[in-house]
């Protein structure tokens, strides 16, 4: 308890200084700094409230003699008032300062002062004098018209942004970069206020015409955070724009997904599918740039975990969700398959991307042989400079669990002599590193005991065979 109290005092000094510098957050620098610290300041306020509510007014002033200044400064900063629950917590802290039974005029005056500050927080706003006079003259109070006013301002700004986006050549009506940057900063504390959604969406979707990014990174981070925590709901197009414009946000979204997968105890495939669909990443990945980043991160995860089966399962479920999403995607926006797998031969990509369930049973053998051929070609391509070699091809192949499954099933069901091509595929799936000789031996082993390996599922189920083991040879892709 004593340590907490010391921490609080240190924090107090820190924030007191910050607030003095920020003042009313009217310059670019102070606004940026305020935005970056909003969440932490709110935490500090919470801790203060927890401490203050246990004390009476006199004790509070003994402990924190300048508390009134600290709270007042915070109240004059519109960014702080606008953020999340900060205004509420500030109010609670102020209420703690009130003397229940004022003994002297000083205490009475303090009570009056607190009342005044509370009133200021709520009736804010140093607005246009004319507008204020007009509305008062009509008999309206801010509560009557502020929601409507906010809505009008948001919609007006959003349509200005859209116009700016579309009318590139009309330089008179362009929004200046400074104004755009300013708007994005101002939105940071407001991200979770639903009334502001149209503006956030417009900021994300309308790029303007400058070659470099104008919007503040704090803005992208705040939006991304809100999306991941489900505190805002934006259309998919806006989310895609966010992830295309700000790579760290996309990476954070992937990491968030990984965290969920790791922290959840037992991950059946259905739950993995739920998490993945929930993350909106499959739909976003219909845009090749996003797909490449996601794929890269999966590759890294595979490397870091030495080929953990969970990661492979996740990749396979992701691919299914992705292909489903691609199917639903607007036909006009379809990108060539090559753009999703730029380092693969187009013929291989095309054949792998088919839905195995679409292949009629009679053609299974043929298709699998074809896949085997193409893969083998890619694997045995020894020319220097070819990317990756066997592991690259293997990484591609494990994206599609359906094919390995089909191989296993075909081998099981067919009474005839198993074709070498299929055995090769299976051996490759489980041991990508093997040299030629080793693989040949493995293939022989398969002929002898096909049932010992793998978890052969009945037809129609989308579960992959038991995951292949990554040999610890330290190869890098």
């Amino acid at each position, binding site marked *: 308890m004593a340590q907490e109290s010391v921490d609080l005092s240190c924090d107090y000094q820190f924030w007191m200084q910050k607030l003095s510098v920020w003042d009313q957050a*009217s310059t670019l620098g102070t606004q940026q700094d305020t935005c970056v610290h909003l969440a932490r300041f709110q935490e500090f306020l919470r801790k203060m409230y927890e401490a203050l509510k246990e004390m009476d007014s006199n004790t509070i002033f003994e402990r924190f003699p300048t508390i009134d200044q600290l709270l007042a400064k915070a109240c004059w900063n*519109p*960014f702080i*008032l*606008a953020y999340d629950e900060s*205004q*509420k917590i500030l*109010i*609670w802290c102020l*209420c703690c300062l*009130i*003397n*229940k039974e*004022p003994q002297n005029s000083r205490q*009475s005056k303090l009570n*009056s002062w607190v*009342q005044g500050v*509370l*009133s200021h927080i*709520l*009736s*804010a*706003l140093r*607005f*246009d004098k*004319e*507008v204020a*006079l*007009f*509305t*008062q*003259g*009509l*008999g*309206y*109070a801010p*509560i*009557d*018209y*502020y*929601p*409507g*006013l*906010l*809505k*009008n*301002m*948001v919609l*007006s*700004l959003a349509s*200005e942004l859209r116009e700016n986006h579309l009318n590139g050549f009309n330089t008179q009506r362009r929004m200046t970069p400074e*104004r755009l940057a*300013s*708007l994005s*900063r*101002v939105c940071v*504390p*407001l991200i979770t206020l639903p*009334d*502001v959604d149209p503006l956030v969406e417009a900021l994300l979707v309308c790029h303007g015409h400058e070659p470099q990014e104008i919007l503040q990174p704090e803005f992208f981070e705040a939006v991304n955070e809100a999306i991941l925590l489900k505190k805002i709901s934006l259309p998919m197009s806006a989310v895609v724009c966010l992830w295309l414009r700000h790579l760290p946000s996309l990476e954070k979204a992937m990491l968030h997904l990984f965290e969920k997968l790791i922290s959840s105890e037992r991950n059946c495939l259905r739950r993995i599918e739920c998490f993945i669909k929930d993350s909106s990443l499959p739909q976003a990945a219909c845009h090749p740039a996003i797909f490449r980043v996601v794929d890269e991160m999966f590759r890294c995860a595979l490397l870091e975990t030495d080929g953990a089966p969970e990661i492979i399962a996740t990749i396979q479920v992701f691919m299914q969700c992705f292909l489903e999403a691609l199917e639903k995607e607007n036909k006009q926006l379809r990108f060539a398959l090559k753009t999703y797998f730029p380092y693969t031969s187009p013929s291989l990509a095309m054949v792998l991307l088919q839905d195995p369930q679409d292949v009629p049973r009679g053609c299974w053998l043929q298709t699998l042989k074809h896949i085997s051929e193409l893969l083998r070609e890619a694997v045995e391509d020894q020319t220097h400079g070819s990317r990756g070699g066997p592991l690259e091809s293997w990484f591609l192949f494990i994206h599609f669990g359906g094919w390995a499954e089909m191989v296993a099933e075909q081998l099981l069901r067919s009474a005839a002599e198993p074709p070498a091509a299929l055995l090769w595929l299976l051996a490759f799936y489980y041991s990508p590193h093997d040299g030629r000789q080793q693989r040949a031996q493995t293939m022989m082993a398969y002929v002898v005991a096909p049932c010992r390996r793998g978890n052969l599922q009945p037809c129609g189920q989308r579960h992959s065979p038991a995951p292949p083991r990554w040999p610890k040879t330290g190869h890098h892709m």
Partner: protein
Amino acid sequence: MESLLQHLDRFSELLAVSRTAHVRTWDPVTVRRALQWARYLRHIHRRFGRHGPIRTALERRLHNQWRQEGVFGRGPVPGLASFQALGHCDVLLSLRLLENQALGDAARHHLVQQLFPGPGVPDADEETLQESLARLARCGSAVHMLRFNGYRKNLNLQEDSLMKTQADLLLERLQEVGKAEAEGPARFLSSLWERLPQNNFLKVIAVALLQPPLSPRPQEESEPSIHKTPGEGSQALVHWLLGNSEVFAAFCRALPAGLLTLVTSRHPALSPVYLGLLTDWGQRLHYDLQKGIWVGTESQDVPWEELHNRFQSLCQAPPPLKDKVLTALETCKAQDGDFEVPGLSIWTDLLLALRSGAFRKRQVLGLSPGLSSV
């Protein structure tokens, strides 16, 4: 029902008193009761706001109150100002009390406790008063930040968000006042004209006259700025403008040409009066032979450029108005003697200027000189 209406009466009184020094006499019990009444009425509004008979009864009661207080001529309503206000009457009361420094220590302490009980179990059904107040603070900050960091005044006033909001409020109020009393709007507008900054008021009127008519929605109780039959409000405005020549003259003088053209296109009843004014202004100018331009005799006379501007704008309006304007100009020209030579009749000169302006415009646009209708 009668007890509900009495409740309404008493609460309205309470609300009016909450702003005065009289609250010095309030003790915690009074404060608590006041907030309870507010909560009760808010609840009534939420439950029965759409319900025909109850809503009508409440509205009628409010209108009676206003009539009795003779508010239309005097100033803003001291108590409850509209039916929609019931939806957040607890917030209204809370804010008024918080602003009132005359409140005694005990009452103040109790008020603050009631308004801000602290973190606790949120009410599942309705938003708590604490939440409403926090949201208002947040909303206010949002408006403030957008106003000073992103907002730019739209040169087309009718699209400007501040103007639009004020216009919506004016129309809504006019409608409510009109329901309360037939002659209400006219008196109300006159009192506003005397009390409010006039320049801003005129702009708001113009924007209000240009708001798009919404399709009538049955009994919808959403934000205050949505009104059911905007036509009524606009009609009241037009009626009042036509009945007050001094106001209308100021209206036409203060507002930009383009805006006035839009307004007169939308409300044809205004065009004869507008044209009449323009004619009057034109007749006050005389030709200065030395300088070779038309000038006024007094400083407040409308200068040639402005006159020309307005006519030019009117000639760019769609047909019914444009034709009326040209006919009026031709008539005036004829009355003056139908001269073709410049410098003798201002109407001749105006027509010449308008025609050549149109001609030059067609040249610039690469159109054939052809038969322009000017």
